[in-house]
C-alpha cells in the first residue's frame, strides 16, 4: 500500500475524474430530486415546500404497497432464477461437450437486443393467433389452451419474470463461467483423491470460489431489475388489473403521465432507500465471510 502524504494527494488527484463524473451526472441531479421530494413540484405549478406530505401520501397509498410487493417478488424470482440457470449454463460451458463454441458465440444475444425489440419479439411469441406458442399449442391439439399470454391474469407476471431471466441469464453464465475457469484444477484433484461426491465438490469448492463474481452480478441485477420499467411498460402496461404493476412503472406514470415530479421523487427516494439497505447489507454479508 502506497502510504505517504505526497502520494496520497496523487491518489485523490487521479480519482478526480471519477468524482467529477459522479458528482455532475449522479449526485447533483439526485440531490435535486431529493429536495424536490419535499415540494409539490409539477409542470402545472412552481414548486413550493410541503414538508413530508409526499411521503405520507405515498406510504398511505395501498397501490404503492401492492407495487412494492410485486417488485419484491419479481426481483427475488428473477434474480434467483437467473442465478440458478446461469450457474447451470456456466457449469455446462465448463464441460467438455461438443458444439459449445457455437453456443458461446450466440449466448449473449438476449443481452444486446434493445428492450423495445425484445418486447416485440415476445409479443410475437404470445399473441393469440400469430404467436409461436399459440401456434404450437394449436398444432399439437391443445388449441383450448391458447390465449394472449400477456393478457392473462395468472400468466402475465410469470411471463415478465421469464423476460427478465431470458435477458440477463447469459450474462450470469459468462461471468460465472469465467470464475469457474480460474479455480485451480488441483482443488478438484485433491477432492477426488478424498472420494468427494460431485455435490460435495460443488458446495465446498466451486461455490466459495465464485463468491466475488456472484456478488457483482447479483447486486448489479437486483438494482437493474428493481429499476427496470420498460419491459413491463411496453408489454402489459402494468395490467391485467394491476397484476404486473411495479414501483418503477408507478414512478414513471407519476412523473410522465401525471407530471407530479415532487410526488414521483418521493417514491424514487423511498425506492432508493430500500436498494441502499439491501446493497449495504448484502455487500457486508459477503465481505464478512472473508
Amino acid at each position, binding site marked *: 500500500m502506497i502510504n505517504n502524504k505526497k502520494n496520497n494527494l496523487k491518489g485523490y488527484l487521479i480519482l478526480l475524474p471519477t468524482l467529477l463524473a459522479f458528482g455532475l451526472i449522479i449526485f447533483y441531479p439526485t440531490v435535486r430530486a431529493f429536495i424536490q421530494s419535499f415540494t409539490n413540484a409539477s*409542470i*402545472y405549478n412552481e414548486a413550493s415546500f410541503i414538508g413530508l406530505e409526499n411521503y405520507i401520501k405515498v406510504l398511505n397509498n395501498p397501490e404503492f404497497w401492492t407495487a412494492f410487493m410485486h417488485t419484491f417478488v419479481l426481483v427475488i424470482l428473477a434474480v434467483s432464477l437467473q442465478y440458478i440457470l446461469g450457474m447451470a449454463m456456466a457449469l455446462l460451458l465448463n464441460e467438455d461437450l461438443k458444439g459449445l463454441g457455437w453456443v458461446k458465440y450466440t449466448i449473449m444475444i438476449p443481452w444486446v437486443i434493445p428492450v423495445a425489440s425484445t418486447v416485440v419479439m415476445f409479443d410475437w411469441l404470445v*399473441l*393469440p*393467433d400469430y404467436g409461436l406458442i399459440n401456434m404450437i399449442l394449436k398444432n399439437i391439439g391443445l388449441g383450448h389452451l*391458447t*390465449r*394472449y399470454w*400477456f*393478457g*392473462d*391474469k395468472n400468466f*402475465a407476471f410469470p411471463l415478465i419474470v421469464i423476460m427478465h431471466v431470458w435477458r440477463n441469464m447469459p450474462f450470469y453464465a459468462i461471468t460465472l463461467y469465467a470464475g469457474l475457469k480460474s479455480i485451480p484444477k488441483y482443488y478438484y484433484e485433491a477432492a477426488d483423491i478424498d472420494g468427494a461426491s460431485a455435490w460435495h465438490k460443488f458446495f465446498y469448492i466451486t461455490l466459495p470460489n465464485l463468491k466475488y463474481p456472484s456478488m457483482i452480478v447479483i447486486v448489479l441485477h437486483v438494482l437493474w431489475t428493481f429499476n427496470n420499467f420498460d419491459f413491463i*411498460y411496453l408489454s*402489459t*402496461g*402494468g*395490467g*391485467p*388489473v*394491476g397484476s404486473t404493476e411495479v414501483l418503477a412503472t408507478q414512478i414513471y*406514470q407519476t412523473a*410522465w*403521465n*401525471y*407530471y407530479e415530479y415532487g410526488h414521483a421523487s418521493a417514491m424514487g427516494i423511498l425506492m432508493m432507500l430500500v436498494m441502499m439497505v439491501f446493497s449495504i447489507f448484502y455487500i457486508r454479508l459477503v465481505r464478512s465471510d472473508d
Partner: protein
Amino acid sequence: MSIKKSLILSLALFFVLTLTFSSAAEELVLWHTSFTSEWSGLDETVNFFENNTNLDVSTDYGPPLYRDISQQFIVQAKTGNPDVVEGVLEQMFTYAKAGLIMPLNDFWKGYEDKDQYLDNVMDAVTIDGEIYAIPYNTNVRLLLYRKSIFEEYGLEVPTNWDELVETASYISENVEGMDGFMFTTKEREVRAFQEFMSFYLQLNKSMFDVSGENVKVTATVDQLEEVLNLYDKMFSSGAISMDNRGADWKALDYGYTSGNQAMVTVGPWIWSHRYEDEARAEVIDDTGIAAIPVNKNGTPGTYMEVKPIMINKYTDNPEKAWNLVKEVTNKDFQLLVDSNAGVLSPRKDVMAEPKMADNWWLQGFSKFADTGVALDPISWERPQNAIIGAIQEVIYDEGSPAEIAEKLHQELSDIAANL
C-alpha cells in the same frame, strides 16, 4: 499505440467534440409525426413540404411517437426548441395548462383562411375562449364491418347496443376463424379509453363540468354502468374472444385487416394498411362504414379526434413560427397528408377537393363527422387510467359492472376535486 498515447488522444478527442457541437439558432424546428413515423405517405409528405416551404426549417422533425414527443417537449420547451409542435388534443390541454404553448387568438383574427375551418373542430382547440392550436386533421370513431360476411350470413348492420352484441356473438359462433367484435383492453392503452368514450358520449356529451370554480363530474353511475355492461356482455357472450383480453391497438388494427374480426369501432387511419399488402387492401375494400350503434337511451355521438399544431410559448420568433403553422395547415398540405392517411380535414376547401370528395372511404367517415364530440378541456391522464382500470376489472371479473361503476364514479369525483 501505447496506453499513454491513447489516453491523451482520447481526452483530446473528448474536448474537441465538446467544443464542436452544432447549434443552428436561425432554423425553425418543427416536431410532427407525419414527418417521422414510418407510414405509406411519408416520403411524399416530407418532399412536398421541403420543396414548397419558404422558411428555413430543420430537417429533423422530432420523435415519431406521441408519448416521446410529449415527454421531450415538456423537458425542453423552455429552451424555445421546438418552435412548433404537433400532438393530440389531450396533450394540448396539458401543455396549455402548464403554460408551454401560446394562445393564437391574435394571429387567428388576421388569418385569411379562418372561415374554412369547421366550427366544432375549432371549438375543440379552444379553452376559455383562447384558441391554442390550428387543427390539420380530424376524425371520428365509427363502426367498420365486413360487407361480404354480412351478406353471406344474411346479417343486418346493428343499430343499437343489443343488436351489436347479438350480431357479434352470432358471428363468433358461426364464422370459422373470425370473431364478431374487438375492444382494446390493455392497461394504460389510450385507445381503450377512446373506445369507451365512443360509446359513453351517446349517453352524455360531457364527463366533467369545467364551467364553475371547481370541476365537477357530470357522468352518472348509471351511465358508466351502462357502458361497462356492454364490455361485460361482449366478452361473456363470446362476441370478443377471451383470448383478446389485454390486447392493445396493434392487435385490433392489424387483427381487423388480417381478417380476424367482422366488426370494430375504429378511426379512418387503418386505410393506410391497404398499402402494406394485398390481403389487407382486400379487407379494406370489403369494409362497410356505419354509425356506432346507439344506446336505446342515447343519442348519436362518438369520440372525435382532432390533431392540433401548436406554437411553443418560448419560441424566439413567434411570427415565423406562425408562418410555419400556416404552411403545415394550408390547403395543399392538408390535402396531401389527409388524403394519403385517409383521414378527414377540418378545412371545408380541402374536403371539397375531388381527391377527398370522390373517395368512398372519406365520404363514409365525413357523413358522420358531425356526431363527433370533443373531450372536455381537462388533463385527461388520471381519468383515462381510472376508466381503463374499470374496464379491466369488468372483463377480468373483479366485480359486477354495477359495483365497478360505483367505484369508478367515486374515483372520477376524487380526481375532479384535485383538477
